[in-house]
């Protein structure tokens, strides 16, 4: 049914349709509306049987999800940013144990400095932990990916993160088609665990593994992610057949067929990039954009196939590896091993800095004109950066960086954006 609802609400309804049995909730902006929506559904009796546990921290949230999943329940939680880091030990634990927990990460920057707005630093920080990471471009896709996530995770016995841009998607009200319960039930069968704490068949979960078998256990996690590369497109295909729309998959190219320049990105910024690409195409420029839906497992072959004919690739990402450069661009570079083309890393939108069509158009034009540096921070205010560097050169006790910069920026509340 078509609804005009907030992204968080759409996700809450989609998750509820998946018949979760244990939901654990700890508040952190900007995911709170998701767990609140689910809490209300449980409390009012609409979502039953389901245990909704208000936990005392994110570490507790993932721990509760682990216990619930190990005991055979379909489990769900949501977090962002600091919360994801607070549960990091348990996040690794969940994938190490192969428990098919589904977690929404409402992508938000990690502090310090504390920042509640969107970027991908949180999920990027956990990209190597073994969880599958799926990125949503729209709220429709965010809702749909949760259905696919439970299906995928339970098939493989691996946990899945569904990543959606905090505030930009979570707090946007837009049109979403929420499927019917019967449709979801036909797509997502009840959870059949591979391992479960059951008095009738006692097993011990969580053994210590030494040098004798650790490599093998970890290799199997790697093998599962490789299997996921095959399952993701198949499940996305089945989803499209049942629900009538394309959602998920590994990658989604847009106007890449004869493109000389291809932009690569994850998440909601793809929408703004597509509008920019359309404008540039109308002006005769051969440019396209590749959206990556499955970030982990990283679809090396699919990315290579999509990009190999281009002359230049611009990876636009809301994340970076301090001192080194891009994170996504490093993965893309791996996919393009041995292929000669111009690669650019553009880091944009950190901490919620708006990414505008105008800035994108300028950046892409610079790349095409060969005027873009290999690594750029889009829309960086060099004035305040240089002032701080100068400040530090002049005095030892130059004070906290963030506070200095903010004084130079001036009153933000007076600005429109």
């Amino acid at each position, binding site marked *: 049914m078509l609804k*005009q609802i*907030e992204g968080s609400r759409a996700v809450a309804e989609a998750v509820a349709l998946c018949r979760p049995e244990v939901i654990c909730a700890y508040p952190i*902006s900007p995911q709170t509306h998701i767990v609140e929506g689910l809490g209300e559904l449980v409390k009012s009796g609409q979502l039953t049987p389901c245990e909704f546990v208000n936990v005392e921290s994110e570490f507790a949230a993932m721990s509760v999800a682990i216990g619930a999943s190990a005991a055979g329940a379909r489990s769900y939680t949501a977090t962002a940013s600091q919360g994801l880091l607070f549960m990091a030990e348990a996040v690794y634990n969940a994938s190490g144990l192969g428990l098919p927990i589904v977690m929404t990460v409402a992508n938000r920057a990690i502090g310090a400095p504390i920042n*509640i707005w969107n970027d991908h630093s949180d999920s990027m920080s956990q990209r190597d932990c073994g969880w599958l990471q799926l990125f949503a471009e729209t709220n429709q896709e965010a809702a749909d990916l949760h259905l696919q996530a439970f299906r995928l995770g339970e098939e493989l016995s691996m946990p899945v993160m569904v990543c959606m841009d905090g*505030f*930009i998607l979570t*707090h*946007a*009200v*837009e*049109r979403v088609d929420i499927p019917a319960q019967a449709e979801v039930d036909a797509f997502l069968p009840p959870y059949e665990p591979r391992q479960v704490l059951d008095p009738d068949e006692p097993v011990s979960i969580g053994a210590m593994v030494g040098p004798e078998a650790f490599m093998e256990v970890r290799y199997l996690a790697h093998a599962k992610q490789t299997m996921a590369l095959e399952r993701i497109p198949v499940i996305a295909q089945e989803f499209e057949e049942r629900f009538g729309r394309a959602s998920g998959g590994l990658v989604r190219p847009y106007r890449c067929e004869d493109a000389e320049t291809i932009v690569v990105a994850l998440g*909601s*910024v*793809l*929408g*703004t990039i*597509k*509008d920019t690409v359309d404008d540039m195409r109308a002006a005769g420029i051969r440019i396209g954009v590749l959206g990556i839906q499955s970030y982990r497992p990283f679809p090396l072959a699919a990315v290579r196939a999509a990009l190999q004919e281009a002359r230049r690739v611009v990876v636009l990402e809301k994340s970076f590896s301090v001192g080194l450069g891009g994170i996504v661009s490093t993965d893309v570079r791996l996919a393009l091993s041995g292929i000669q083309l111009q690669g650019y890393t553009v880091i944009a939108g950190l901490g919620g800095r*708006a*990414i*505008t*069509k105008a800035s994108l158009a300028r950046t892409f034009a610079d790349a095409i004109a060969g005027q873009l540096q290999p690594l750029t921070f889009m829309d960086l205010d060099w004035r305040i950066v240089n002032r701080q560097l100068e400040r530090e050169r002049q005095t030892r006790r130059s004070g906290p960086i963030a506070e200095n910069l903010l004084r130079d920026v001036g009153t933000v*509340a*007076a*600005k*429109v*954006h």
Partner: protein
Amino acid sequence: MLQIRLHGRGGQGVVTAAEMLSLAAFEQGRHAQAFPSFGSERTGAPVVAFCRISDEPIRLREPVLQPDVLIVQDPTLLHQVDVFQGLKEDGYVLINSKRGFEELGVGEVSRRFRPGYLATVPATEIAMRHLGRPLPNAVLLGGLAALSGLVTLAAVQHAIRHTFSGKVAAANEAAAAEAFDFVTRELQELKAC
């Protein structure tokens, strides 16, 4: 694509107003996107909300930099924030106030835009009479329907019924209708002179 920007303060329902606008557009069978720009929970801080309406699916996610419609829920922002920034020449402006543009000190600015596209409406006062509370958000949308015709009053009232319930919904609907009539009269008077 139509782009609307709403300015107000936290606690005044600016975000809800943008959402109701998107609901009204949805009711009329159009695509709509509404999203806020704000910080942590805080009453009184300046808040900006955006709404896009189109007959095609909306992919753009940037803030509304060149609005076709500007709604100002709190006139105290007029001299604190550059609310008119980027407003298109043939853009609509609706300000919540019982005073006119000159009296509000934005007469000069307003002359950059088209007469007949600008209006003020005492939405807070209308809200007080119908709701007993100074919540002008739904009321202003009634005024917008009259000013621009970009959403119908019926669609606005449908959005109100979807957002509020019972007596509150009914009161908001009535208040929106009153604002609609007020702005209609204001525009007619303007044409007359």
